[in-house]
């Protein structure tokens, strides 16, 4: 990190930073992984330059060359002191809601809803690799969850065959083989576990908390992504602000550079997609709405497993939905017809390639030089159909009419008469009690109005059910309640 890379606010005394009370004014709440917040280690460093109590901002001109050099050295050696395991155990998503309890109301609403739709989550260490780690871990965990030995073997062969991409982009085997070895080691562990009837993923968590192993696997996935991008530049270049080779060298091939939307899409396209798994992101931000914004990175299709990421600005974690997302009806991405059992249309007939997944990422601007309207991407992406009219013959045989192109016409929301469950999580199911099976569609977009998550005043401290209320009394859910 060079001096110029450090946000200026890091040089200010720590007291200048907004305290938690001010956070509701719109800043994201402080959470332990956010790199944007001052790390205690850094404040110690700045302490050597500021006498205690002196509240002036850092002035570059006032420093001598020697001081500048000292500063540069400290900044070069600075490493964010991030605590916690690289991959945590599964924990209640209610913890996320608690973390945001004092934040902007949008966050409060969304995190409360999230704890119901996705009761479990797994945090990733915010060390610059969280996005890479979340996808890699989610991939292996999904593979273990399917308990299919043949599929594990098939995936191992497939991932190893991707070495061809590395060779094609000039990577040398004696440099990358140790990364592939580490990945293969995890595949073997999964095979062994399945053979021994082990479903518990603790061994995977341990494998990803071993520093060497974890670094090697992530580097392997990074290299594959980089090679994939270099071999498919037309799919990604238009979305990058710098030449693709330079992007790969500075953002993908490095050790601790956070993944961005384009890199994540390339990772999914190049490494994950052929597994048949779906990858979905839940965006937790201050955008309008009462639930996190879902975005599917893989084509809409039936998938045996879904890797579900929670995205907060600058950080990725893993989420686990209340119900298995098997056969989840796609809602967001309609670039393709509903099924894809037929061969894809010939993209070679276009003058350029269209990365439909990237084009549908909310707010990801297209480069004007791409040759299309340089407007921000709307929620419903422009259909590639318009570029290639003959495509319209490819409507799914399973659907008489084309799939809805916008989110404005959802199917009627199912009626749910159950009382609101507690805010933090679904109660544990008992075998004799009634089971509420929420259709996954219920969780989507404007259908969420039917969700029994927010009743009036639910998020107000004046409500007794709010944990900040003086007479706080948690809502108790009784299995018999739903029979009324």
């Amino acid at each position, binding site marked *: 990190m060079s001096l110029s890379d450090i946000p200026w606010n890091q040089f200010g005394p720590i007291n200048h930073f907004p305290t938690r009370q001010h956070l509701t004014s719109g800043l994201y709440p402080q959470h332990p992984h956010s790199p944007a917040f001052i790390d205690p280690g850094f404040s110690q460093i700045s302490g050597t330059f500021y006498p205690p109590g002196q509240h002036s901002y850092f002035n570059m001109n006032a420093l001598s060359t020697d001081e500048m050099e000292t500063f540069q050295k400290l900044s070069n050696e600075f490493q964010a002191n991030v605590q916690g395991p690289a991959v945590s155990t599964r924990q209640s998503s209610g913890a996320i809601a608690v973390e945001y309890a004092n934040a902007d109301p949008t966050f409060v609403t969304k995190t409360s809803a999230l704890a119901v739709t996705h009761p479990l989550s797994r945090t990733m260490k915010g060390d610059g690799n969280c996005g890479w780690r979340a996808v890699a871990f989610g991939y292996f965990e999904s593979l273990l969850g399917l308990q299919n030995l043949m599929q594990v073997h098939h995936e191992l062969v497939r991932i190893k065959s991707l070495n061809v991409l590395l060779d094609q982009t000039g990577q040398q085997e*004696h440099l990358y083989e140790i990364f592939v070895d*580490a990945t293969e080691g995890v595949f073997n562990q999964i095979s062994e576990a399945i053979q021994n009837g082990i479903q518990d993923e603790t061994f995977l968590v341990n494998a990803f908390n071993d520093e060497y192993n974890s670094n090697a696997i992530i580097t392997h996935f990074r290299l594959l992504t980089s090679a994939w991008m270099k071999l498919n530049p037309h799919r990604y270049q238009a979305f990058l602000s710098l030449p693709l080779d330079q992007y790969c060298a500075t953002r993908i091939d*490095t050790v601790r550079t956070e993944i961005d939307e384009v890199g994540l899409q390339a990772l999914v396209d190049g490494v994950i997609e052929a597994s048949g798994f779906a990858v979905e992101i839940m965006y937790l931000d201050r955008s309008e709405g009462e639930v996190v914004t879902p975005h599917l990175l893989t084509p809409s299709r039936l998938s045996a497993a879904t890797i579900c990421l929670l995205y907060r600005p600058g950080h990725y974690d893993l989420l686990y939905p209340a119900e298995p997302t098997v056969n989840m009806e796609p809602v967001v991405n309609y670039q393709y017809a509903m099924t894809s059992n037929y061969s894809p249309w010939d993209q070679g007939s276009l003058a350029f390639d269209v990365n439909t997944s990237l084009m549908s990422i909310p707010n990801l601007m297209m480069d004007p030089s791409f040759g299309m309207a340089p407007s921000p991407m709307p929620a419903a992406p422009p259909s590639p159909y318009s570029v290639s009219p003959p495509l319209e013959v490819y409507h799914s045989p399973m659907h008489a009419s084309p799939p809805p192109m916008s989110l404005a016409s959802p199917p009627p929301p199912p009626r749910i008469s159950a009382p609101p469950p507690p805010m933090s999580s679904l109660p544990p199911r008992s075998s004799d009690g009634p089971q509420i099976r929420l259709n996954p569609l219920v969780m989507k977009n404007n259908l969420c109005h039917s969700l029994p998550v927010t009743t009036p005043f639910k998020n107000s401290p004046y409500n007794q059910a709010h944990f900040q209320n003086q007479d706080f009394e948690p809502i108790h859910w009784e299995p018999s309640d739903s029979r009324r």
Partner: protein
Amino acid sequence: MGSQKRIAKELAELVESPPDGILVKLADESNLYLWKVYMEGPEGSPYHNGKFLLNLSLPTEYPFKPPTVSFKTKIYHPNVTNDDKGSMCLGMLRADEWKPSSRIHAVLEFARQLLAEPMPDDAIEGRIAEQYKNDRKRYDEVAKEWTRKYAVESS
């Protein structure tokens, strides 16, 4: 462990086909992580005819952290600390710019290239960098003198 396997292969490659003007060997046969590098000053630079000894030390986390390179032979250069450490830390040698797919071969070529073309804007010795930019003649003289004094074997 994977990193030893890789270091051994990289070393074998470097011994078999060393880059121009560079020779490497282990400082101690039993330790893969500490190398001695003999580097000839590139032609056209004030370091020409000098033979510099460098230490290359590989962290246990290699290749996820970069090697560290230091000049054991005293050298007058804006990017090498002018002390008994002789350390050099810029470009690909920085932890945040390092790529695990880079090889030591490239590190050594990078170090030698730096002798031919110093990077005064990324200097660790600000005074030498100033001189390199504003009074190249004087810089050349001093660098040559130091090379004669410290980097030429008196045989």
